[in-house]
């Protein structure tokens, strides 16, 4: 959910950007990173831990922790918290199996 009124800040949420997440159509705004737009659309589960497949959400949101890696337009392991949302982006949580060896 977006903040509508704020005593200090003004947010410009006028220019919409259409994208999809696991095939579902979603809308974000210009200036959003992929992670911000997903979060606003109610997505909390961003990735799975490598070995135990535990759900992982956003943790640091500035590119340090690696919890928000996703598949973007077919490219794997994209840090969604640093990557700006673009019109028509296809975002998915599907990743290849990691070999433990």
């Amino acid at each position, binding site marked *: *959910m*977006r*903040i*509508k*009124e*704020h*005593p*200090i*800040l003004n*947010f410009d*949420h006028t220019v919409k950007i259409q994208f999809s997440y696991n095939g579902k159509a979603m809308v974000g705004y210009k*200036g*959003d*990173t992929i992670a*911000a737009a997903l*979060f*606003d659309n109610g997505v*909390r*589960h*961003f990735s799975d*831990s490598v070995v135990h497949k*535990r*759900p*992982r*959400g*956003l*943790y*640091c*949101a*500035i*590119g*340090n*922790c690696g919890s928000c890696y996703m598949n973007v337009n077919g490219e794997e392991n994209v840090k969604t918290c*640093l990557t*700006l949302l673009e019109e028509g982006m296809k975002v998915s949580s599907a990743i290849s199996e990691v070999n433990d060896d």
Partner: protein
Amino acid sequence: MIKRDLVIVGGGPAGLCAAKVALDAGMSVTLVERFNRLGGQLIKQTHKFFGSESQYAKTRGYDIAEILIKELDGYGDLEVLLEATCVGLYPDKVLTIYQDNHYFKYQGKSVIIATGASEKVLAFENNDLPGIYGAGAVQTLMNIYGIKPGSEVVMVGSGNIGLIVSYQLIQAGIKVKCLVEAASKIGGYLVHASKLKRLGVDILMNTTIKRAIGKEKLEKIVTVKLDENWQEIKNTETEIKTDALCISVGLSPLHQLMSMAGAKMLDVSELGGLVPKKTCDYETTIEHVYACGDVTGIEEASSAMVEGRIAGLMAAKHLGFKHPKAFELEETLNNQLCVLRQGPCGEKIRCGLKKAGEIND
């Protein structure tokens, strides 16, 4: 390979200030920033800074970022790389920069590392559930993107970040259920804590998080009281319903590039963990590689700015570049740092720097 007089890694307060001084001294500078804009974590800081005028007291963090960025306008010899990650630093001052799916090699006659810090995590059962965030992440969501991180937030940690972010949550119209602090004393400035109390936020002292509960995401947390030896007190577990738990238990320096380059590192808990050993000129054990800001020890953005200026000045000086005001600037900046670290609030950093062998008092 692209050769420059100076390559700075990190476009936050320390990196921006280092760039300005080095450019004034006539160096060619490349500034490498991972995010899509400069300013580092200042861009999400809506509070007015404390301190003195030379560190922009009474100015909001994001406005300070604007000032520092504007100061770099008009320098022909500045190259800014955005959405560019430095993934390698080598002892010969070669850097590998990853940008737009390509790797680039740079070599600086000098290198300044100003990578900042990352938020620490807290150990408890289920601490990896979605809905548990670093307090900084919550601040990013709210203040940069205008997104509510949750409807009922619990904050862990009463340091300045925990206190300030709690206040900013309330400003954004979000309920802060309570603030949990394991110690018996507020960690940050009392003025911030008092503000929260006046707004009706419960501050639970001697309390920590026992476990988080939830299937795919956070639904509840269980707190527990601690005795004076930090041991859990039986039968004091309390369940609290929440959809966002913010962890604000300190920061650790992002030391990886310097560790990789083989600079001597020191483990100093008062400075936040692994920091590079450095001289009073901010030079690491690798000649012409400098470090400044939170990566050399966790402090405020105010001191990061001053440290950045000193590092820029020293990088120039050691290569024979003459800053027009080198002499007076060096003295003024060192004095400013002393003032920033005075008093009871500076005790931890003074102690850390002493352990690291940088001050001898």
